[in-house]
């Protein structure tokens, strides 16, 4: 397992990679899981927040909401050529509203390692741990 920061990390899964975010609330864990998602491709600290994108989605459970949230980010990256480095997430009754700040991919500066093509249901979990912290995680396909 690779600990990246106190709030997010990636973990090993065969040929692919898992992303995991922690937080006092599900929303914070979702925002940190998104940081872990960016880290699969590039160092999120090197992504400038020059543009922002709004997101809104609703799903039957927090787990499917995480899946949808991460896949919306993957979709924006794929279709708009954007990388994201900062996230503001709110969740109410399995409904997510969020803003993500980022910038167009700069191959020289970001040196993207691998493109995430989708978030998957493998190791998909959103749960509160005994220490009261929330964890939001899944494996992403690269």
């Amino acid at each position, binding site marked *: 397992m690779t600990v990246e920061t106190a709030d997010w990390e990636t973990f090993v899964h065969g*040929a692919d*990679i898992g992303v995991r975010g922690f937080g006092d609330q599900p929303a914070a864990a979702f925002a940190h899981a998104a940081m872990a998602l960016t880290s699969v491709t590039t160092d999120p600290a090197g992504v400038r927040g020059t543009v922002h994108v709004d997101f809104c989605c609703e799903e039957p459970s927090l787990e499917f909401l995480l899946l949808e949230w991460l896949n919306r980010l993957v979709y924006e990256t794929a279709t708009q050529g954007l990388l994201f480095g900062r996230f503001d997430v709110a969740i109410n009754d399995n409904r997510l509203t969020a803003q993500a700040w980022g910038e167009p991919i700069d191959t020289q500066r970001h040196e*993207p390692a691998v493109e995430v*093509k989708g978030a*998957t*249901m493998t190791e998909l979990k959103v749960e509160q741990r005994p220490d009261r912290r929330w964890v939001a995680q899944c494996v992403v*396909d*690269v």
Partner: protein
Amino acid sequence: MQGNWERIGNEAWRLAPRDAMRVPAIVYASAALLAGMEDKVEVQLRNVASLPGIVTAAYGMPDAHWGYGFPIGGVAAFDPDQGGIISAGGVGYDISCGVRLIRTGLTAGDLERNKEALADVLAREIPAGMGSRGRVHLSPGELDAMLAGGARWAVESGYGMAEDLERTEERGRMAAADPAAVSPQAKHRQRDEMGTLGSGNHYLEVQRVERVFDRNAAAAMGLAEEEVVVSIHCGSRGLGHQIGTEFLKEMALRASEFRIGLPDRELACAPLRSELGMRYLGAMRAGINCALANRQILTHLLRGAFRQVFPQAGLQVVYDVSHNTCKEERHRVDGRETTLFVHRKGATRAFGPGHPKLPEEFRESGQPVIIGGTMGTASWVLAGTAASESLAFSSACHGAGRSMSRHQATKAWSGRQLIDELKAQGILIRSPSLRGVAEEAPGAYKDVDEVARVTEASGLARRVARLVPRVCVKG
């Protein structure tokens, strides 16, 4: 794998049905390869063997490893008359990811005289890596025509030659594709990605035919020692992934409606005879066409690149195989010809000699099976056998499979060090990402030679030629 596997033949192992399994699991592997497979592979094969309508067995190929729902290197066939299902997880996210092998008419000596120049032109002409965009931009109408027409559409649009289609599975066009079943999001994602390699383990590699093992089959494929060939490994890009993501979610959410118990959500599936099953089938076939068209456009770009450096080269497609598919095929089950839907997830179709779907030139040799390796080791060309029909519904392996995670690889190697080491061996690497090169280090993969040997020993396919890398454009 530590389970109770019974040896049933030369490099073949069987796990008897138990608990919810409807059929046994069968793995083709040496004792060492079997022991090296993760326990999760056994769990996944047992799960697949429990799905409704599965016939004969759930199969693992010699390169089987842990995947999403189904193992990669997994084969399973379902009978719609017995309530059989179709599984988006059983096809995989990168629908019709595959390998196209192309002859160049050049010798290794020709290549070595101008290898650096070729590597630089390929790096410039072949869009690779994250953020790269293709030069082919499709309108909504053109996209639908591509999804219905596959490589045939690409050739008719000026990307390639009609003879390329004869050397492509399904003769370049997967029939009964349904572009209307593909979401606007999936189509949007593909708008600028036609004719791109992508990233991860995808590549374009110039190779030397190092050794021929089966002269007759090699002659049928036009391969001879010291000739130069090119392999293109890529798939249906963003469109395939978006289809997989959307249908997996819908199938998982609707599993209870079909009364299918899912031990793993990635096994999400729907009855073949359901609206959802049919809709996925139509979308998945459109995804296959996208991959076939993508490799066809890349072939066109490749020809242009070669012309700049080697005007005398004549690039001819040897064959194009897909290894993430579900195909409707006729097979014998209990002595009876039956229509089945064969899922091959990280597995290659391997029709044996005489199969009516093969082009005339391969009727004696069997279908070419192209096995991707790594940028530092080797790739293989095999040929389908008649025995493979009864062994695994005419299927074989697809590659080496990782033995090390991406993170472990970046800890063990640096991209720059790898590029320098490979250059010292005469292998030129061109990639937009040093980290990407490190993640794909040859040492992070299993021994592809052993996988090819066991594939032959088990009877799934026989070895025709070993190819070694000379120039690799990594995505």
